[in-house]
């Protein structure tokens, strides 16, 4: 029996095609791989990945970091900041001295543990929130950041999970509101006359409402608060306004004030036009909100693409477009409002780079730009979805464009914590391939970000 020589060569053609776990390993294209770890396919070479190294001590050794970023202040000075549950830190100008903490504490409102901070530079100021009922602002000049999203009463405020800029306004998506000045306890001050059980009334000029439960000769002797309202202060003898019945003269003494945090996962809330510190539409009518009540799901992320923003929901996407009107500044077009559909299911898997971004639905990974959707999961999709199913923390994503000294590797980097290590799936935007990096003994706690130092 004769033997014939053979050769099989593997290489880029013209690029490596990357991870493919979906086709049987004998039916793959020759530049696919059924399994790869800690290699990259950059510039057509199969190269071990760069060293994963500590670049900074963190602001607080035992407090997980909730994010980082850089912005330019009005003096043209660049600031690099980091967030923990205790507030805001900034990087020192000289930040590479071994053993010396390179961070300076600035303060600010406390942040929610375990949620990546959403931040947005706007007119040389840094604005940020992360699921707390406040938007904070720091201008790079003041000693400390401050909360700027108070409503008309000066105590209630709004914040949210996602913060972005569109049409000269700051916009919150998935709103969290602190409703301050609710009536926690009250009593009849004067029962008035002409009331019947079941009559309803509002209290003072606010939104609190009540219903009569007991009367004596037309005077109210008992009632229940049906809506605790907002914006109230302790006060004696607040006059009520009947909304049903003919009674008059009922006054109530408010004896205790409370507050509550109201989560509105379907709501978009925007600041006044060009006034990022004004959020109450009763103060400036160009501020406002839309609860998107005609959609069946919750907001899971945002991409601001300049001309419009895409509001991602669990099972759909809503296009938010400026109208040019001050009173109704945005138009909301739901691309679909079905109970099942393409939306973003992992809130912090969205990453944006300029005019395009990437998000993950239940069945695919999509690259989206102003006028296109493209499926990019390829043969790596099943591996990614399987890891999502066993993730032990919140998956986060980021698009990395370049590293020091002109080392360009434009990649979407999806990091999934898995018990004792983090697995990072990298998608090369240029070469359209996936690879896998792993960082042993380390778990990611928030979205990565490229900063100046």
């Amino acid at each position: 029996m004769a033997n014939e020589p053979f050769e099989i060569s593997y290489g880029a053609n013209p690029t490596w095609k990357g991870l493919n776990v979906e086709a049987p390993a004998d039916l793959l294209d020759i530049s696919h791989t059924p399994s790869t770890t800690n290699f990259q396919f950059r510039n057509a070479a199969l190269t071990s990945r760069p060293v994963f190294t500590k670049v900074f001590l963190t602001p607080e050794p035992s407090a997980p970091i909730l994010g980082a970023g850089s912005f330019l202040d009005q003096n043209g000075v660049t600031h690099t900041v980091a967030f923990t549950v205790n507030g805001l830190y900034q990087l020192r100008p000289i930040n590479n001295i071994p053993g010396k903490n390179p961070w300076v504490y600035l303060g600010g409102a406390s942040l929610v543990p375990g949620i990546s901070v959403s931040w947005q530079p706007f007119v040389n100021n840094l604005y940020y929130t992360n699921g707390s009922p406040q938007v904070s602002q720091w201008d790079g000049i003041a000693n400390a950041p401050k909360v700027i999203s108070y409503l008309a009463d000066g105590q209630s405020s709004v914040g949210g999970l996602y913060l972005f800029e569109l049409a000269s306004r700051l916009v919150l998506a998935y709103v969290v509101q602190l409703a301050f000045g609710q009536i926690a306890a009250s009593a009849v001050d004067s029962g008035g006359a002409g009331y019947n059980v079941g009559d309803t009334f509002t209290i003072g000029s606010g939104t609190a409402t009540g219903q009569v439960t007991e009367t004596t000769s037309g005077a109210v002797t008992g009632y229940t608060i049906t809506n605790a309202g907002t914006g109230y202060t302790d006060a004696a003898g607040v006059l009520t306004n009947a909304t049903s019945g003919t009674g008059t003269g009922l006054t109530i003494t408010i004896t205790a004030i409370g507050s509550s945090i109201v989560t509105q996962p379907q709501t978009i809330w925007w600041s006044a036009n060009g006034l990022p510190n004004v959020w109450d539409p009763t103060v400036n009518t160009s501020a406002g909100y839309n609860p998107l009540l005609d959609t069946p799901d919750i907001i899971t992320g945002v991409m601001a693409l300049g001309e419009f923003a895409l509001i991602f929901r669990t099972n759909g996407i809503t296009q938010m477009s400026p109208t040019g009107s001050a009173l109704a500044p945005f138009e909301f077009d739901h691309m679909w409002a079905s109970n099942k559909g393409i939306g973003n299911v992992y809130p912090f898997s969205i990453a944006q780079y300029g005019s395009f971004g990437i998000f993950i639905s239940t069945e695919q990974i999509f690259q989206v730009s102003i006028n296109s959707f493209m499926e990019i999961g390829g043969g790596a999709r099943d591996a990614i979805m399987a890891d999502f199913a066993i993730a032990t923390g919140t998956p986060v994503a980021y698009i990395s464009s370049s590293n020091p000294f002109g080392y360009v590797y434009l990649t979407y980097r999806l990091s999934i914590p898995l018990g004792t290590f983090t697995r990072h799936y990298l998608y090369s935007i240029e070469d359209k391939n996936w690879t896998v990096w792993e960082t042993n003994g380390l778990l990611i706690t928030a979205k990565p970000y490229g900063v100046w130092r």
Partner: protein
Amino acid sequence: MTDIITPFPIPRPTPKGPGTPTGPPSPFSPFSYVYNKNVATTSNGGVNALTTADLYPMVDLNGNAYFYTFDPTQGYDDIYAASTHFFRVEDAQPYRVPTIRWVTLTYINLGICNLTLTITYCTIVPDEKLGTEAPQINSQTVKAIIGSATNLKSIMTQRIAFPVISGMNFQLSIVRPAGGGPLSLTKVTIAGTVEDAKY
């Protein structure tokens, strides 16, 4: 009068080869001091903004938090993480048994690198008792050292001899152990012979 540090655009040297940083920063001074008389307030801190870093907020298994980065300026030899790559499962000729003798590696020399090459393959073992054939998966591993401390970034080729392996559905995998050295392959070739039987 306020003393403001204003960075110039950072000069970007031309990349010089795949997978490699491009050396030390330019000697060109990337910033200078500028007096800006129109600014009434002084900035609180700030950075020189000479370079960027991707910050990965990480916590170790003891709860200690750190900022990490994947840093190509530190090279491609992570001492805490091995690199593993599997190639496609091959049939040299459908249903013919090949014999593998060599694996040839062509690479960009980033320095000395220790490797483990493994070929798994399928053999068919006759079961004389039952009069049938049973497939069996086997593997053969070879350790190799490639690269050179000199002539960095040159393209080099090295042929790795394997003990003779005969089997179908063979699959090559390459492991760079943690701290084994940097590796940048451009081409991998498996060579051998395949039976020319006629059925």
